[in-house]
């Protein structure tokens, strides 16, 4: 169970001995590599390390530790990385509750934090910080995309459902923010719930013509299989988390046709994305997920800033990060005033290609969408 370390930054690249004069930069990645949520952290790490390997920059050193999805362990690891490993930048946390435990303390000590996933509203609004950059999104974004698109997809009476915890409540709020139809049923399930027969019966009786769910990980697998078997048959829409590459294989054909809001998809046509998807498959033998794409973008952002400024000069380095001068796999990418991305949001559909299930884009839900909590941030 003990976390393992990876000394990276392509030691082989040392042989090339480029004449880089920049100070070395040490980045600490805290992510979930064991336990129930491990597949998300493993994808984050693999995407990040793929970009590190491709860049072959000998000045970048990466330390990776496993937080076991536990806030107390994440805090200990962050302390250790800051105090004894002397890292300059932290990254990698998947879960919002862990991010809330680590990020404010790390940025208060003058460290940079680049989020590869979790971007809770508390850090996007009142708790914003100039040293905190979310490369992925603001937590509400993918739910907003689903909400903005649901009416276009013919869902005029929606039944909406999420687990009863802060991210679940944010999810339903995000969905409703841009949804133009009527919400006919709203249900909070238990976190970690595995049986949804009761909720499915309520959906059947509600008179809805579509269902929005935010059920990440195993919860979504359970729901989608049971929903398909129930014969209710109303269209399903959700955020990409519930329909990610690693998850839909376990859902099987039950997931076909499900719509999901996303800011990245393996079939996005830009060059950076084509390179990413091909090289990720070559390196790891599987298709990348959104988590892998965020890891990859985060590493490339960091590398681009390293090329412009020295991390010891915090103001210059911050400005270099803010420029976001890298080829994002999402195409156009820029940071808004609160260091959250301003980006296009899409809706994808789960399709079968050969033996595997994957996602492809069916439409654009919102263009240049930023952070809903911008007004609360004083930075």
């Amino acid at each position, binding site marked *: 169970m003990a976390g393992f370390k990876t000394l990276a930054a392509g030691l082989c690249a040392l042989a090339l001995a480029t004449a880089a004069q920049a100070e070395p930069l040490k980045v600490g990645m805290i992510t979930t590599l064991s336990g129930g949520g491990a597949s998300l952290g493993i994808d984050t790490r693999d995407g990040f390390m793929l970009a590190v390997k491709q860049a072959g920059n000998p000045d970048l050193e990466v330390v990776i530790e496993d937080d076991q999805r536990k806030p107390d362990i994440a805090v200990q690891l962050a302390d250790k990385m800051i105090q004894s490993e002397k890292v300059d930048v932290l990254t990698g946390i998947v879960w919002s509750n862990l991010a809330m435990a680590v990020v404010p303390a790390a940025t208060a000590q003058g460290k940079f934090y680049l989020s590869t996933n979790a971007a809770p509203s508390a850090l996007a609004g009142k708790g914003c910080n100039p040293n905190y950059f979310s490369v992925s999104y603001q937590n509400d974004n993918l739910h907003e995309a689903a909400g903005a698109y649901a009416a276009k997809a013919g869902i005029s009476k929606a039944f909406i459902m999420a687990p009863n915890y802060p991210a679940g409540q944010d999810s339903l709020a995000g969905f409703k923010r841009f949804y133009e139809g009527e919400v006919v049923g709203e249900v909070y399930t238990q976190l970690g719930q595995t049986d949804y027969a009761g909720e499915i019966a309520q959906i059947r009786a509600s008179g809805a013509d579509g269902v929005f769910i935010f059920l990440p990980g195993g919860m979504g697998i359970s729901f989608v299989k049971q929903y398909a078997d*129930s014969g209710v048959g109303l269209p399903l829409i959700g955020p990409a988390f519930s329909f990610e590459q690693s998850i839909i294989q376990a859902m099987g054909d039950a997931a076909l046709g499900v719509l999901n809001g996303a800011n990245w998809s393996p079939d996005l046509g830009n060059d950076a994305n084509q390179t990413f998807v091909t090289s990720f498959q070559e390196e790891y033998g599987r298709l990348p997920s959104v988590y892998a794409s965020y890891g990859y973008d985060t590493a490339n952002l960091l590398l681009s800033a390293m090329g412009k400024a020295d991390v010891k000069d915090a103001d210059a380095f911050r400005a270099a990060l803010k420029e976001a001068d890298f080829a994002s796999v999402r195409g156009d990418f820029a940071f808004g005033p609160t260091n959250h991305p301003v980006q296009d949001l899409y809706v994808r559909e789960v399709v079968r290609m050969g033996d595997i299930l994957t996602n492809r884009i069916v439409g654009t839900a919102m263009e240049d969408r930023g952070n809903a909590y911008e007004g609360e941030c004083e930075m």
Partner: protein
Amino acid sequence: MSALLLIEQALNGLQYGVMLFVMAAGLTLVFGVMGLINLAHGSLYMVGAFACAAVAAATGSFWLGLAASLAAAAAAGALVELTVIRRLYARDHLDQVLATFALILVFSEGTRWLFGSFPLYLDIPAGLSGPVTLPGGLDYPLYRLVLIGIGLAIAGGLFWLIGHTRLGIRIRAGEADREMIAALGVDISRLYTAVFALGAALAGLAGALVGALQSVQVGMGEPVLILAFVVIVIGGIGSIKGAFVGALLVGMTDTLGRFLLPAAFGHIMDPSSATSVGAALASMLIYILMAGVLVVRPGGLYGRA
């Protein structure tokens, strides 16, 4: 709210309850007969689900997978009993909790090592998928009806085994006075291995049956384990009848609570806070039930006080 919806929810509660019973039966036997707290019971549930998913994927037959889940969980149970659990009978409960918690970690990381971190695919067998129309016009998934049937059949089989067979007499005797039946010439350690393997096989079977409805992934056993403990505490430790009644009570309370409470709160507050307050209270309901039962009957419904 229609009567049809209420009937559907009651069926859901029944199905949930009988599957909890299959899981809890092994736990209560092991606890009752050997006095052992086995936290790794949930891992055996996971072993069953993984064995079923792997064999079903390789052979294309869910039923072969189901047989494999029984065999794999029973074998894993017997192996664990012979190598680890056997040394724990004489130790106190804290040692047992520590050692079986370690087993959870070993099973989880071992499964991850064998199968990887990504959830496996296990689907309902083709003949049982989709809904059937019940009398009264209610569409209900056939597979869930089959689960209710299998759960009830297992309950009947266990009552017969405990009440009317030689093995059952020995199990009951071992529960009452283990020194005495050892003195009467019963090979107590073999009996313990058999009971443990039986409990493990039931957990594995429940894992495989429920795994087809849910996701087969590392750590799937722990949430069920907590519920199984609630069931045996409500029913009375060591009592199969108690486990059955307790499981149905928990299944019904949980399912109907999650459905009725938010609706009830909807009459006195706005819909959004009603759903969140109702959902929060519903998730506590089975623990409130457990506390209530323990106040009235400290030994559980059918336990020795």
